[in-house]
């Protein structure tokens, strides 16, 4: 068991952000429920927020926090409209699986 470093290296935060992002991509590609796909997108956005704040710490400027703030606001707007679209799709198709919403195929 190697000894723990004195303070957390910045690369650990960025690696954690990468892990969360890849997990979000996995959820986005593998899951078939629309709402879970949407939640994987939110997970990806959160991973990117962590990256922004880490870089803001490294460069000792507050602009990364501002970017993160705007990402949160845009994610809120996107969640509102996206969930309204999901409600409409459910009203018309009575299903939440993305494979069933395929009337434009072939």
């Amino acid at each position: 068991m190697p000894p723990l470093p004195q303070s957390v290296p910045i690369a650990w935060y960025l690696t954690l952000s990468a892990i969360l992002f890849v997990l979000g991509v996995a959820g986005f590609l593998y899951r078939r429920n629309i709402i879970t796909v949407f939640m994987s997108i939110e997970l990806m956005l959160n991973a990117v927020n962590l990256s922004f704040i880490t870089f803001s710490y490294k460069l000792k400027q507050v602009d990364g926090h501002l970017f993160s703030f705007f990402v949160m606001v845009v994610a809120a707007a996107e969640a509102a409209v996206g969930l309204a679209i999901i409600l409409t799709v459910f009203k018309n198709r009575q299903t939440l699986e993305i494979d069933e919403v395929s009337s434009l195929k072939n």
Partner: protein
Amino acid sequence: MDVILFLIFAAIAVICAVNLVVQTHPISSALSLVGVMGALAALYLLLGGEFIAAAQLVVYAGAIMVLFVFVIMLLNAGREQKSKKRSWVKFAGIPLLLVLLGLISFLVQSVIPETEGVTLGGFTHGTALDIGRALFTTYLLPFEVTSILILIAILGAIVLARKEID
């Protein structure tokens, strides 16, 4: 002490994210996502971003995820059914995702030198005062534009989700 806190909250975040991807019922996934956001809020506090940590709790975990939970409860979404597709696609995806993860980690480790570590108190300009000052001077235009964006989103959501009056 910082390292132990980071490891604890990072472990919580990764476990909740894995739970999000693995669980079949959407509401378990939604609550796991709330757990991820809570762990990330703690990590933002360790990085000196106190306002962003509070905003994460108030906006993301307290409003957006409540909206998700509402929609899942209203639609009465059940468990996901097993897929009828062939399974070789699923097995090919996992190594590719690991390659993506390895690539990003390698890039990160090679670009950022390991000289500086993150300590609690290393960055003190994340207070509400600093963010407010930057928000209303340098970033005033994006601020006003996002307020119009939110107005558009509210109108869009109301129009899309209302009942049709015959």
